[in-house]
């Protein structure tokens, strides 16, 4: 069964949607705990880690949303180079696949995706190179705009 681009893109939207739900839930709980901390009495770790959970939520989801994007790139990379074992670095895939004749991702979009990759590296690999923050809506838009140039199906 071929891989459908629409399914990879739908998965990115699912992760983004989960972020929206989690953001709403964490914000609401934060407000409720501020008003009455007893609601989390006995819930080990919740009071201590609620603020960092709130602060780090967007970065955490950027890691997941980029993973969904990278999985799509890897699938196409292996198909295009006819090598099911191929392991290409994300940075290389972004440049190589985006420059293919039938893809041709615009350079500002490609550069934006590289910025998202560096943000992912900062959160996932504890990189010291702190990139400037980027709203997750912008992240989603850049990754989707990049994938928009790919064939509808492959494999």
């Amino acid at each position, binding site marked *: 069964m071929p891989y*459908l681009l*629409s*399914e990879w*893109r*739908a998965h*990115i*939207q699912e992760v*983004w949607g989960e972020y929206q739900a989690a953001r709403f839930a964490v914000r609401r709980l934060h407000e409720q705990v501020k008003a009455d901390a007893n609601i989390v009495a006995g819930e080990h770790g919740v009071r201590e880690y609620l603020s960092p959970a709130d602060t780090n939520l967007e970065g955490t989801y950027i890691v997941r949303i980029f993973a969904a994007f990278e999985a799509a790139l890897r699938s196409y990379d292996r198909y295009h180079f006819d090598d099911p074992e191929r392991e290409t670095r994300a940075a290389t895939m972004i440049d190589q696949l985006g420059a293919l004749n039938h893809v041709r991702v615009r350079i500002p*979009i490609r550069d*934006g995706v590289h910025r998202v990759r560096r943000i992912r590296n900062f959160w996932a690999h504890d990189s010291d190179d702190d990139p400037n923050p980027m709203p997750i*809506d*912008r992240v*989603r*838009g*850049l990754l*989707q*705009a990049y994938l*928009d140039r790919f064939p509808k199906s492959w494999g």
Partner: protein
Amino acid sequence: MSEKSTRFASEVEHVVRQFEAVVAAMNQLDRRDEKRMRDETGDVYSVQSLTIFLGPMRLLLDPNGYDLPGCDGAIDLYLLPPYDPVATLYLEDGKWFLHSPDLTSQESIAHPTRWERSALTSESIASLLESIARHAVPSV
């Protein structure tokens, strides 16, 4: 396909036909695609998605599912290519409702909590599509 997913696919078909009729009346184009989803038992079923071409603009009517709290189904409408949300349709007690932002008074699309709600009719679909064609700008 489960009974629930069959019912949802049928509801989606009804909405897609409504959009197709409005798009045709506006002399614009659209394209159906099959979207594979999983039902509550894990089996794969298919629904229709609709890509709408409004002049240079593209929209995707994208079924979201039926296993959602507070409604019996949802369909998202996205502005492509960045997949910016511009409306959501919710199925409640057998009727579809359209939630969408007021695009005329916003520099950027408002948060969905501030979107307006209306019954899904040919008029509300036409009004939404015209407003998108006139005012929406992709975020990327």
